[in-house]
């Protein structure tokens, strides 16, 4: 019983190492459009290593700001990216227009 356990355990480590090395290739870019002061989709589900790209169609500068966390500034008629580094579930808003709100849920890959 004890022996039987150790073998799969080693396999598990190999599998884990494989997953980790493979992850960057699987990382996705998720697009969030900003138009007329609305983030859409407002809710994003992503994995660690994924990138969010905000595409700003407005003539106004916006930000995606997490209180006490990350901030991305998206200039007018432009876009900006952020690679998600950790597992978290956070609300974000635009610092210039706090009535603009979004949410990101990041899970482990």
């Amino acid at each position, binding site marked *: 019983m004890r022996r039987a356990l150790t073998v799969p355990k080693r396999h598990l480590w190999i599998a884990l190492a494989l997953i980790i090395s493979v992850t960057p290739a699987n990382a996705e870019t998720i697009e969030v459009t900003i138009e007329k002061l609305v983030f859409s989709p407002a809710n994003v589900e992503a994995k660690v290593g994924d990138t969010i790209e905000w595409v700003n169609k407005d*003539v106004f*500068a916006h930000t995606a700001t997490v209180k006490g966390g990350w901030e991305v500034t998206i200039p007018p008629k432009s876009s900006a990216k952020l690679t998600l580094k950790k597992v978290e579930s956070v609300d974000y808003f635009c610092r210039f*227009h*706090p009535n*603009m709100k979004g949410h990101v849920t990041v899970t482990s890959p």
Partner: protein
Amino acid sequence: MLNRHTAALAALLLIGAAPLAQAADKPTDPQIAHIAYTAGTIDIEAAKQAIKKSKNKEVVDFAKDMERDHEAVNKQALDLVKKLKVKPEDNATSQALSKAAKEERAKLAKLKGAAFDKAYIENEVAYHKQVNGALETLLIPSASNAELKSLLETGLKIFQGHEQRAEHAAGMPK
């Protein structure tokens, strides 16, 4: 029978008369364009005054954001009236707004330091509230052109955002 008809006719006339009276007060698209542009210009002027007078970084940053956003809205408004071949028309509402703003600027010009910052931010809260009210209850419902209506709706969201920010700044200890 005759009586009933008369009553029905009277009721019809009454119902019909009310929207007509309202229609007379409704601003036209050229007037709405003028009011919206004036409202933006007023906030840009106020921002310029604050950028020049304030020593508080938070207040100056806020003012710069106001200037940038309202210049962007007004540029869109100008592009739209050009496209629609609408000539913005001066009116009593625009004149009243400009007059009140001129008085406010003169009042603020006499203040300095923290007193100026406080008065500027408080006025920004009150002013954005006032404009939001006008947009929601009068200007947006009155606009007949769909593109103008859409621009006003975006303008409302910008103004609401600014109002929230100004309220937040007003509540902050200086």
